[in-house]
């Protein structure tokens, strides 16, 4: 170990706040990216599953009310 005591390891001769702040922010942000990516994946899977479980849209529309949206070409 490069330090004589645990206290010296924490303070790092005055450089402790700089070093620990960097490590804290590094783990915080990397952790956030991992957490966010996993949550996004779970959300997408749940959304796909909901879409598959629900019956097709046309079965839910009231009888007689069928409109077709026409989108004219912009070209």
């Amino acid at each position, binding site marked *: *170990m*490069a330090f004589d005591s645990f206290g010296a390891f924490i303070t790092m001769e005055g450089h402790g706040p700089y070093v620990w702040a*960097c490590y804290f922010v*590094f783990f915080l*942000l990397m952790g956030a*990216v991992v957490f966010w*990516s996993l949550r*996004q994946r779970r959300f997408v*899977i749940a959304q796909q599953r909901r879409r598959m479980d629900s019956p097709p849209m046309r079965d839910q529309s009231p009888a007689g009310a069928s409109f077709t949206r026409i989108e004219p070409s912009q070209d």
Partner: protein
Amino acid sequence: MWQIFHKLGSPKWFFGIASTLMPWLLWIGVPLLLAGLGWGLAFAPQDYLQGNSYRIIFIHVPSAFLAQSVYIMMAVGGLVTLVWRMKLADVFVKAVAPVGAVLTFLALFTGAVWGKPTWGTWWIWDARLTSMLILLFLYFGVIALGAAISDEKSSARAVAVLVLVGVVNIPIIKYSVEWWNTLHQPATFKLTEKPSMPAEMWVPLLLSVLGLYLIFGWLACLRMQTEILVREGRTRWVKQLVQAGGN
């Protein structure tokens, strides 16, 4: 070779390969990174000039290294998108851009915090720092442009062009410390020369770099899989996969 290239273009094939690779990438990457950081923090000797503040190097260099590598990988992806219209290349570019932005921010932040005790200032408009800040803005630009265009093909092409134009910044970052008189120290690792630091310092640094690369690989696979699930949501294989739990 061409067969592999064609297979790589298939999202279904990639999804399977990524699922096999991901546990390996994560379970080798995390211990490597933690070993490198633990060694660097507690066991590596103190720097004779900078004292203990130099221990920031074990996260600063891997983040900065990877931030630039990710951009180069994105540029290759952009080129493949434009030349071969491979969808998976665009999936890669869009999936990793936010990770690249976070890594660039980390490189800038840790650099600023390291700069205070070493140079006496948090920030200076010096060539290396400014070109890294431009890299961060390029990442933001790629993310924003990708999100702004809803048509998949137009969005892929626009993002690919932006990424390729921005790649000119990478050699500027790399050689900024040689072309201009900067406060930033020259490269720690060079392929052609021996490292300028003792093994007790560069071995943990190398472990952290490798570890972070592998973790990035895991993140890229995970995020690409999510993007594929969204884009290929109407195909039969994705429907079957979602019903089976999504793995």
